[in-house]
């Protein structure tokens, strides 16, 4: 069963005075299966962030619907949205979005506190996750005291601690150097190996080559898809870069 289904989504931004309209998404269709690790690629301005915001229920589509586990996001009432979001979705952002007045530990626990979990349960859940992400020693530190890669790992911990249906990541390696990026991608692979569904937006071919499926979007539509099949990361890398070349030439032609 697909965990996420996107049906005929469109999004039109209207500027403040209604004079100019921007079609960010037009008739987008795709679905993500449980346990999948999908990447979305596309040129700047092709509507990736817009799509992710809609999937995250932070924004509403102009038309179409999004089903999470068969449930339509548009049907959820405004009041329940944030609870829905924190119970079903995990987020990883390009710029980490950690709160500077909380220690890493408290940052990671924030969604659980919002869910009103007991302290004992929080600590039980935190321990294995911190262990796996290699940040156990850093838990008492504050965001300004750790490196970018470590911050991003804390952000991943915060995303997975609620055991969400789906993790949405918007250019998670964007602010990391290549070594930290490689570490993060390894973490993503591992948690995906545990059965976690991940949807990641990225510009980086390297990052995308870790995914099982790559969706290419252009002008607000899904333009092409690539499946890993039996390819290694390196082989997939070559395929992606070929596809991108073809895509950009099509634009010119």
């Amino acid at each position, binding site marked *: 069963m697909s965990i996420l289904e996107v049906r005929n989504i469109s999004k039109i931004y209207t500027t403040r005075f209604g004079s100019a309209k921007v079609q960010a998404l037009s008739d987008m269709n795709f679905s993500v299966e449980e346990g999948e690790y999908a990447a979305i690629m596309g040129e700047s301005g092709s509507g990736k962030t817009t799509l992710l915001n809609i999937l995250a229920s932070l924004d509403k589509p102009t038309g179409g619907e999004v089903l999470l586990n068969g449930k339509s996001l548009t049907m959820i009432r405004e009041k329940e949205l944030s609870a829905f979001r924190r119970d079903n979705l995990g987020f990883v952002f390009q710029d980490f979005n950690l709160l500077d007045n909380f220690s890493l530990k408290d940052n990671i626990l924030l969604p659980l*506190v919002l869910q009103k979990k007991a*302290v004992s349960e929080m600590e039980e859940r935190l321990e294995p996750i911190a262990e796996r992400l290699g940040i156990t020693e850093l838990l008492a530190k504050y965001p300004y005291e750790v490196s970018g890669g470590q911050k991003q790992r804390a952000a991943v911990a915060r995303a997975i601690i609620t055991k969400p249906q789906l993790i949405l990541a918007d250019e998670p390696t964007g602010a990391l150097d290549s070594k930290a990026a490689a570490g993060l991608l390894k973490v993503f692979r591992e948690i995906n190996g545990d059965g976690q569904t991940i949807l990641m937006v990225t510009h980086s071919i390297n990052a995308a080559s870790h995914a099982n499926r790559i969706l290419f979007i252009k002008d607000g539509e899904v333009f092409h898809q690539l499946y890993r099949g039996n390819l290694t990361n390196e082989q997939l890398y070559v395929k992606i870069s070929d596809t991108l070349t073809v895509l950009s030439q099509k634009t010119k032609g």
Partner: protein
Amino acid sequence: MNTLYCRLAMTNLKNNRQFYLPYILVGVVSAMMFYIMRAIQGNKGIDAMRGYGTLKIVLFLGVIIVGLCTCIFLFYTNSFVMKRRKKELGVYNILGMEKKHIAKVMAWEAVILYGVSVGGGLVFGILFHKLVAMFLYHLTGLAESIPFSVSGWGCLQTIELFGILYLVMLCYNFFQVKLANPIALLHGTYAGEREPKANWLFAGLGVGCIVTGYYLALTVYGVIEAVNMFFVAVLLVIAGTYALFISVSIVVLKLLKKNKKYYYQTAHFITVSGMIYRMKRNATGLANICILSTMVLVMISTTVCLYAGTEASLQNNFPREINATLYFDSVPDDAAQEYLREQIASVAEEQGRKMTHVSYYTDAVVVTHNEANAVERYDKNASYGFSDMGMLYVMTKEDYELYVGEPIDELEQGGVLVASLTDFLWDTITIFGQNYTVEGQAVFPDDAPDGEMTDFLGSTNVLYVIVADDDALNRFCVQDQVQYHIGIETDGTQAERKAFVSAFRGMVEDCKAQLGFATGWITSRVEQQEIYLEMNGGFLFLGLFLGSMFLMITVLIIYYKQISEGFEDRERFAIMTKVGMSRDMVKSAIRTQMRMVFFLPITVAVVHLAMAFPMLKLMMQIFGLANVPLFVGCLIATAAVFAVIYFIVFRVTSGSYYRLVYR
């Protein structure tokens, strides 16, 4: 080239109007207040009037305080704005603008700000000067009319003071920019995110200061001690208040954070960590608000109370229209007393006044040292200090009966009645080496004559002794220490009563040689009324003037605090929304923190005020006000009005805060 910098400066001011508009407003208002104060104080008319001089001193004090406050206040605002603008200046620097050029832009900004503030201040000052002066004259009961005028000295000194001030601030800003490298400038706004450490020592010292200050204020006895200890207590509490907001708050919050069960609950989690952050950023601001609020409350309530109580304290301190005390070497004989009474009657007749009440009594007053039931002269032992001082009042049975209004039992030869603040339990009393039998205790129905001495000496060292007759009284007489008291009440208008007093004064002067007394001390309620009005009205004026200035400072600090918090909170709440915090939760979390930050300073201020009450009550006695219910009423009313204003300001400024956070 210069016009380019000037234009750039203009654009900067415009783009940062959120910060500069209040800054300019404050500049204009301070310049206006300084000008008005200086213009009123420098007015020649005030010199010529009445000449009691209190008003002149009060106004001079006003000029100095307003000037000082202006300096501190503008400096505070400037450094706040600078902190916020460091980033912008950093961008200029990185874009390739040399520091020299940045300095030029800053200089132009300062020139523009200075011009607008002083120009606007002087215009409004000149416009409102007459109005404010009329208000002062009304309060102090001066009848003179005030022509519209411009004070040259006022303008000049305002221009000078603000010129120096803006120059110093500009240098400070140069220095700030010079010190910083571009990266630091860029991050200037966000420097120091480090979580504060709980400083137990500082917190303990702070609590100690406040407790000591409170203890001093609560246990003070007597006016002299109150005056002596007041500043010590105030300084202790001010120091303690800063520590309270800076360290004690952090210590408490950290303790709450350590308690996991408490801390990891949705509401507490966000509030506690938010508060730690807020307290670190704004502790000094909150402490300033608290201290300023306390000052406004004390200043306005005491001055309002003094003014409202003028009539009552006049009646209290001058129960008679005319009170005269003539100092004789021995009890004046009947003929002398008779002569005096005739003279008084003829003065009244001459002036056309009807005396509704005339009373006379004699007593001997000696400065003594009292111990148990032995009284000796204070000057007998050179080693006696101030705390050994006591007073002995001796009066005849006849005068005592007049005082209490009913006859009392005969006194034996050598027998006396004794009155003191506490029960006098001995059967005998030794006065200046002579033994007397105590036949009973005397009681004064309202207040003992010269009763304020008891308050003043702050002890039980004041004794009243009633003796049988003039002969017995004469034995206590020392040079100049027999006091012949005259109390008179008359009809007539203010002017008529004033005329009567001068005639009475002349008569007493004429009697000196014939009756053989050296000095006489005459007080008149009409004259005192003018002095009281001048003093209390002057104080009220100063209290309101400075009170509104401090209020403005408080408002500005709150405004800047809200704005800077708005900027900082915006991102944090955006993140929380992303990880699944609902808008309602965000709103209620913000509201809790805002409310805490709002109520904290004013609550502490009110507690300070309540603790200072016993001390303030005593200090009010210096100004002749003993009306405690009135004072309590004034305190409560002032606090209530202040709370309302504070609340309105809070609502308005939190509007701009919410706009920033929910943009």
